[in-house]
């Protein structure tokens, strides 16, 4: 379903992605890990059209994505969230979801008021558990609730492929737990790629993991294979442990 071949991204001479190959079959829940600056966000940026690759190809469902505009890629069924969540604070939760859900309608048809709640919005509300906050403005939501709203907005768009950039960053333990369940549930009927740092979270919820390091794919495999790999321990886990020791990361 998603296939990246030899993708290169260069920022002012710096190789952020240096020949990435990645294949994610339909229906998979794939985790993408790697130390800070490994190129995880850049990889998502390339798939979604925000960053143009200097070389290589990105194919999704048989179509070449390189050179397409962001909104066109979304229309093909690729949705994403950002590392820092962006919801529209002046709109209510429902309005945020509704805005996401109606993107396929022609612009002129939006000149009417919203009446009631569409099915897609209803489903997104129940799945993310935001029913009670439906009429509140998104500005009053907590950090965790915002992340769920973002995921809900994605769901309301009914994409085929979801790309989530660190969805549980900054969440409390309970919130992580809920998000993990939500992701597993979503993965039942979507292809999902999740960028995540937290090892415990990975152990609980991950099936296949891809490790990115210095713009290249280092290892790919099950969570046990990956965490047992000495190279991974060196570049990623070792470093994380060292960081944890000095308390750099929560």
């Amino acid at each position, binding site marked *: 379903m998603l296939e990246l071949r030899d993708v290169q991204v260069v920022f002012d001479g710096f190789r952020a992605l240096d020949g990435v190959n990645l294949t994610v079959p339909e229906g998979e829940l794939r985790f993408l890990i790697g130390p800070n600056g490994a190129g995880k966000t850049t990889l998502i940026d390339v798939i*979604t059209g925000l960053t143009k690759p200097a070389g290589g190809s990105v194919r999704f469902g048989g179509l070449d994505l390189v050179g397409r*505009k*962001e*909104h066109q890629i*979304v*229309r093909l069924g690729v*949705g*994403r969230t*950002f590392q820092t969540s*962006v919801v*529209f*604070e*002046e*709109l209510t939760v429902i*309005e945020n979801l*509704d*805005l*996401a859900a*109606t*993107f*396929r309608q022609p*612009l002129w048809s*939006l*000149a*009417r*008021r*919203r009446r009631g709640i569409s099915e897609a919005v209803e489903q997104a509300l129940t799945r993310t558990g935001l029913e009670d906050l439906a009429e509140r403005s998104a500005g009053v939501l907590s950090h965790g609730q915002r992340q769920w709203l973002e995921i809900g*907005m994605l769901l309301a*768009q009914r994409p085929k492929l979801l790309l989530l950039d660190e969805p549980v960053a900054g969440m409390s333990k309970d919130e992580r737990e809920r998000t993990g369940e939500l992701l597993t549930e979503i993965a039942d009927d979507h292809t999902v790629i999740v960028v995540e740092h937290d090892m415990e979270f990975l152990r609980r919820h991950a099936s296949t993991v891809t490790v990115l390091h210095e713009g290249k794919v280092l290892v790919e495999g099950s969570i046990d294979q990956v965490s047992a790999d000495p190279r991974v321990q060196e570049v990623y886990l070792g470093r994380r442990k060292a960081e944890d020791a000095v308390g750099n990361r929560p």
Partner: protein
Amino acid sequence: MIKRHLPFATVAVIALVAAPLLLEPFRLGLLAKYLCYAIVALGIGLAWGQGGMLTLGQGVFFGLGGYSMAMYLKLNEAGPGGLPDFMVWSGVEKLPALWAPFASPVFAVGMAVLGPVLLAVLLGTLVFRQRVRGAYFAILTQALAAAMVILLVGQQGLTGGTNGMTNFFELFGQDLADDSTQRGLYLVVASVLGILYLATRQLVHSRYGRLLVAVRDGEDRVRFLGYDPALVKTVTFAASAGMAGLAGALFVPVVGIISPALLGVVPSLELVVAVAVGGRHALAGAVLGAVVMGYAKTAFSEQFADGWLYLQGALFILVMTLAPKGIVGVVGRLRRARTT
């Protein structure tokens, strides 16, 4: 339902019934002029307040509308085969081809709206696709206003130059000097404003309005929701341009003149200040601001002509720092304070 429409209905009754009965013709004429500005302000409220596009060049669209109307009026007075007075004075012998179609009132009024809309679509397509926004967009529109003035002044024989066009006597067979014609014009202006206000309010409350606010607050995020923000902005900008154009067309018979001084950088800025003072996030604020600032300008310029500019600048800074939601925001706060 009734409660929601009560404020609008009250204002409509005052504007359409009380004002024409109570105000003497001179005052009613002034109000008509402010209401023309209020139509422009409504468009600014939509583009800037809702869509985040700070447009400092609405005078350009106002001018296109005004000049279209003025051209029709001039040709109508000159009669078939005749030349407008200012052309005769500047030695033009044959009617320029650009002028010819404006002999038709339908064409002239159509162009008053369509001209600005097309220009805004062109500009929006070029500018918003390149993701020009914020201050860059503001400066660009301001430069456009400056360029428009230079263009108009430079083409003396075509546009009347610095003096613009004046001496209009008749509109659709009615004597423009007549009080009843002016009262009729006032009613037309007030009705147009009312209709546009309702239509714009409907738009703001629609899904499109929500989308517009989303584009204002997070253009990049909107792109990843599958919308093209450039298109949303272009459409909105074009709507505001069309309103300004229509306002310009109404302004000419009401005030009796159109000239570069009425549509350059300063008048364009004055309207943005008025919208800020009234409250840019509410459409009613934009309209209110235009009327209040119109009256204030008339009152102050009578006493100290130069002082007004400084006073206006000071007021703008004051509003932006102390009451960013303008008069509407302050009134809303007072009302809430009283009820709680």
